[in-house]
């Protein structure tokens, strides 16, 4: 930097540090981090950190643009620009100094992210490689968001003469990018995400980092490349426009712009090709259930939260007492039915049901057909026999979102030594379900390759109230990658849920060529029974 550039840098840095705007921006980001942490504190450290930082990227982008605009348009705002630009410093010194000062003052965002990383992991005893990889990537993500905000600010400064309009346009830029990302999600065009500042809290990247799904670290790297070239291009175009207004533009700058444009197109094409391959194979949905509708799912989900006045906070599903133990599950599962994505009959051997209300967690998109019970009277569970047993008695149940309350009749509450059988039949979509304004079901788990029964879906009734997709205890899953070896039921590492382990008998009926992968607890017996053809399945 030239000596005059250094003086401008020092002056600007002092002005930025004195500006209430910068401190307000840092405060907003710190508050968002804090808010996200309160919201997701029960998540595992790496996931928590992604949620903390991923959620603030857009704000970091916008606030960086605002802080940079504040510095770049200081003289215009103060009515000093004519005198300032007639002073000896060159444009390079002026804008170099101002942008450098903005970069230094915006590094406060990076410090906040670093502090979060140093606080979250170590405080929960997490020192694994995955955690620190995630932390490093999140720092890079924040730096890219800052750079993108600065680039947009520089471009707008060069293009727009009215300095107040620049702030509005920066905001509109963010709105536009957010819309593009939304459209990308809605249409499955995940490559469009590359034009937005990287947000690792977004589904494909979040699942990549935590579970190793596609696009993996390569996809994240490709996104970062697109962003880097986009940022460089915005800066160069801004410089070009600025020089067009004040000085002559040399051919070198034009060549640089052309190079950046070529690199941007190439990096985006790379990302596009990768996602295209993914769409054609891994994520390709099975056509015949794509338009399935589930009226029961709607009616099930319509119950009022308040009507389920159980213990704990049902709105978040955490802390509801698990007042019974499921000793054994017998799950009869059918996947990719022509109408319903998933149909299941689950018979549970429930021990110690000391209270009349039993709480379960079952994903909201899975609509319940019915709940019935019968006493075991000391007999062993034989699901095939029990399924046809006419002594099943329907019982009352209520649904609220992911939570199910089953109200046992008075004579069903037995002593701690005894047990009962509970049968729940349900069906639901297996892909991309709309979850209201909170977003879509993140994983299309029935694809051309196979079915992935993961804990986020709560595809079988979990005893007690759990926050699906967030709680460390039920979130832990296996890894599903394209080109994986034949179906393997994956075992969980032991979650700290306070569960006693259950025994599982799982019968999966599906297409023979599919891979079917499921999350199930570490202990228990799994009978893996993939049928050669899809049989008809009837639930009572």
């Amino acid at each position: 930097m030239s000596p005059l550039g250094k003086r401008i840098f020092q002056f600007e840095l002092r002005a930025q540090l004195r500006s209430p705007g910068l401190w307000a921006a840092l405060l907003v980001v710190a508050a968002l981090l804090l808010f996200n942490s309160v919201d997701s504190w029960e998540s595992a450290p790496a996931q928590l950190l992604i949620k903390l930082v991923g959620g603030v990227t857009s704000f970091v982008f916008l606030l960086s643009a605002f802080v940079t605009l504040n510095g770049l348009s200081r003289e215009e705002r103060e009515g000093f620009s004519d005198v300032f630009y007639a002073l000896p410093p060159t444009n390079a010194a002026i804008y170099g100094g101002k942008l450098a000062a903005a970069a230094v003052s915006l590094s406060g965002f990076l410090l906040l992210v670093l502090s979060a990383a140093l606080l979250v992991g170590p405080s929960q005893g997490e020192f694994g490689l995955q955690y620190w990889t995630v932390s490093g990537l999140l720092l890079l993500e924040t730096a890219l968001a800052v750079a993108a905000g600065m680039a947009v600010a520089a471009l707008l400064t060069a293009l727009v003469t009215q300095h107040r309009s620049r702030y509005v346009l920066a905001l509109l830029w963010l709105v536009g990018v957010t819309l593009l990302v939304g459209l990308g999600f809605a249409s499955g065009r995940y490559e469009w995400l590359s034009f937005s500042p990287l947000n690792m809290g977004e589904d494909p990247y979040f699942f990549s980092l935590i579970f190793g799904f596609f696009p993996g670290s390569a996809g994240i790297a490709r996104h970062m490349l697109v962003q880097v070239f986009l940022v460089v291009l915005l800066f160069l175009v801004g410089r070009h426009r600025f020089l067009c207004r004040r000085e002559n533009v040399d051919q070198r700058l034009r060549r640089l712009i052309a190079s950046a444009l070529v690199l941007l197109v190439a990096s985006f094409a790379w990302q596009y090709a990768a996602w295209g391959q993914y769409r054609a194979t891994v994520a390709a949905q099975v056509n015949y259930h794509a338009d399935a509708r589930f009226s029961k799912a709607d009616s099930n989900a319509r119950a009022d939260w308040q009507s389920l006045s159980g213990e704990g906070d049902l709105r978040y599903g955490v802390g509801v007492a698990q007042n019974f133990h499921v000793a054994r599950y017998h799950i009869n599962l059918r996947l990719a039915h022509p109408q319903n994505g998933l149909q299941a009959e689950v018979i549970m051997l429930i021990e110690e049901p000391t209270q009349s209300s039993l709480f379960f967690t079952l994903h909201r998109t899975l609509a319940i057909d019915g709940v019935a019970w019968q006493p075991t009277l000391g007999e062993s569970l034989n699901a095939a026999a029990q399924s046809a047993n006419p002594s099943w008695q329907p019982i009352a149940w209520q649904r609220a979102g992911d939570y199910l309350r089953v109200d046992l009749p008075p004579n069903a509450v037995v002593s701690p030594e005894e047990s009962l059988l509970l049968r729940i039949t349900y069906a639901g979509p297996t892909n991309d379900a709309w979850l209201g304004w909170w977003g879509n079901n993140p994983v299309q788990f029935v694809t051309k390759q196979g079915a992935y029964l993961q804990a986020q879906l709560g595809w079988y009734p979990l005893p007690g109230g759990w926050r699906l997709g967030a709680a460390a205890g039920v979130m832990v899953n296996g890894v599903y990658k394209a080109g994986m070896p034949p179906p393997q039921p994956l075992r969980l590492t032991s979650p700290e849920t306070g569960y006693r382990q259950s025994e599982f008998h799982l019968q999966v009926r599906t297409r023979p060529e599919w891979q079917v992968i499921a999350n199930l607890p570490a202990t228990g017996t799994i009978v893996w029974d993939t049928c050669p053809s899809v049989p008809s399945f009837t639930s009572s």
Partner: protein
Amino acid sequence: MHGALRHKGRRKDRLALTAAFKCIFLLCLASLRAGRRREGLKQREAAALAFSIQITDLTKQYRKGPPALNKVNLNIQSGMFGLLGPNGAGKTTLMRILATLLQPLSGEVYVGGVNLADNPGAVRAILGYLPQDFNTYRRLTVRQVLDYVALLKGLDAAAARRQKVELVLAQVHLKEKRHTQVAHLSGGMRQRLGIGQALLGDPQLLIVDEPTAGLDPEERIRFRNLLVEISKGKVVLLSTHIVGDVESCCSRLAVLNQGNVCFTGSPAELAAKARGQVWEIAAAEEQHTTLPASARVIATRRIGDTVHRRILSPMRPLPAALPVEPTLEEGYLQVVKAGATP
């Protein structure tokens, strides 16, 4: 013993000889340096004397409307040069081009022999500029603003910078306000601050656009004197609506109208443009006088019950009208009205 004494004596001689050589060498060096300094001074003085601005066929056109400057040719020598013209004449455009803030459509400008288009940086290094509506960082104090501008003008040494800032503060009478925030200055004080920042760095070219607007009469006179004082060996380009400012300060001036130079010359020459066309009529207040369409009342003053009117007219407007010696303002009005060419 004897040998030792003789050896000591020789050593003394050698030392004396060396000292003498050293003295001669230092004297020569000092005289050489003094010569060079004198030469440098002479060169600088000569350069200062020769410092001028040549403007050739300068044209500037904005996207909409007629040309703001239309093939303007001016030769501005060191000293104070006034720019007069009605609103929209192109004065500010010309000044902004000279201040490297605008690019002309065509034409050439040489400032002190430097082509403005090729080397705007060199021009900025010798420039002091005060725009029409001066404002600056509101939250900074007067001294902080001047200090920052001085830094950007290359006054690196803290002591020298402080000294220069203090000098300028004294020149523009803002010493007592040095610790006041700009936001708390009155319009006139802010204008003085603008003048102060333009004076920093001893600019060879000082461009001042409407500098006395907003100043009280005392400050205006003081400022005129200051401009005259600093204009020795420099070009001070003064644009103003106040003809009195130009009259009292500038040895030469130009009149711009609709992007064209209507006149260049001295104030006396401009005033002479209206010679034979300025008339005075003295009449009682209640006496109604009808003037011909070509006549225009320029000034009216009352003495007792009589009203004296100065009228600009190519011919005697009334039989009672007497020819009078024109003022600069009347010359200016005549030139603008006639669209005269130099």
